[in-house]
């Protein structure tokens, strides 16, 4: 009977806190190392683009940021739903902890897009399908953050946030497929599952390294925020008291 994997072990805030303490040094290290490697390949190995000159180098942060903005939203909706369905507190904490990082990457995708659009399209912004749906994603994140922050009752806040996050998830496939469904100024997918990438190998390598760096960064920063939130929620609990007093003695 006890042979079954104890999936819910790390659903306990105290064990989650401990696990993150073990994992996060690796995530921080990986984020820094991969960023250095990605920037090196991106600026010193990848050649100048034949049509866009050096401006194309924005792709190495633009595309990874845009990917993270969508992936983090889906992760946020998933954990919010798990928290709601199973009354799992750490799942709801994770959903809340993901939102600011997702909003940051969404803003970054829009910002770097504007700084890439200006030299290549001649405009910082157009109201086309890809850009508009990504802007809506930013508003969904900000709406989620404002909604959960405005409800004092934690559990009610988690549930209201979950509803918003789940309904808003319909926007993610709209963003992804917008370049196919509508005529848009934005270029099509650089990478797809069905065709060879439309870019040089070194360019692709730099973009993949930066994507992995952003993944590692996201894990590290979201887990740190989730730790802080777990401490805040359980501030009277014995494990938090022990942890806080242990820290105090050792410092």
């Amino acid at each position: 009977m006890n042979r079954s994997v104890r999936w819910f072990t790390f659903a306990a805030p105290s064990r989650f806190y401990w696990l993150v303490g073990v994992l996060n040094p690796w995530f921080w290290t990986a984020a820094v190392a991969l960023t250095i490697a990605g920037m090196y390949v991106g600026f010193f190995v990848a050649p100048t683009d034949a049509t866009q000159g050096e401006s194309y180098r924005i792709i190495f942060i633009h595309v990874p940021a845009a990917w993270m903005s969508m992936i983090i939203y889906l992760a946020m909706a998933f954990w919010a739903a798990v928290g709601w369905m199973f009354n799992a507190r750490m799942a709801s904490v994770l959903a809340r902890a993901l939102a600011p990082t997702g909003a940051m990457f969404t803003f970054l995708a829009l910002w770097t897009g504007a700084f890439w659009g200006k030299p290549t399209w001649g405009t910082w912004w157009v109201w086309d399908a890809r850009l508009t749906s990504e802007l809506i994603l930013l508003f969904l994140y900000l709406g989620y953050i404002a909604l959960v922050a405005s409800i004092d009752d934690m559990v009610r806040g988690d549930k209201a946030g979950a509803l918003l996050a789940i309904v808003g998830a319909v926007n993610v496939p709209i963003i992804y497929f917008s370049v196919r469904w509508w005529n848009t100024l934005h270029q099509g997918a650089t990478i797809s599952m069905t065709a060879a990438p439309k870019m040089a190998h070194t360019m692709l390598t730099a973009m993949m390294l930066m994507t992995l760096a952003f993944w590692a960064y996201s894990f590290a920063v979201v887990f740190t925020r989730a730790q802080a939130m777990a401490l805040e929620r359980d501030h009277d609990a014995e494990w938090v008291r022990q942890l806080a007093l242990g820290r105090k003695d050792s410092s």
Partner: protein
Amino acid sequence: MNWASLSDFLSMRGYGLYVWGSYGVAAALMLLEPWLALRRRHQALHAAANPNPEN
């Protein structure tokens, strides 16, 4: 090697504003966010170690 000189690199051959305007804001936000998260965890631990300091 793509760059003939440091100024060549810094100017991005005319695209300096756009490239560094993108990377600069990305770097600023991705340093600020971890700092805020670590500070929040530190404050939560501090609050737990010193409950009700005014009582």
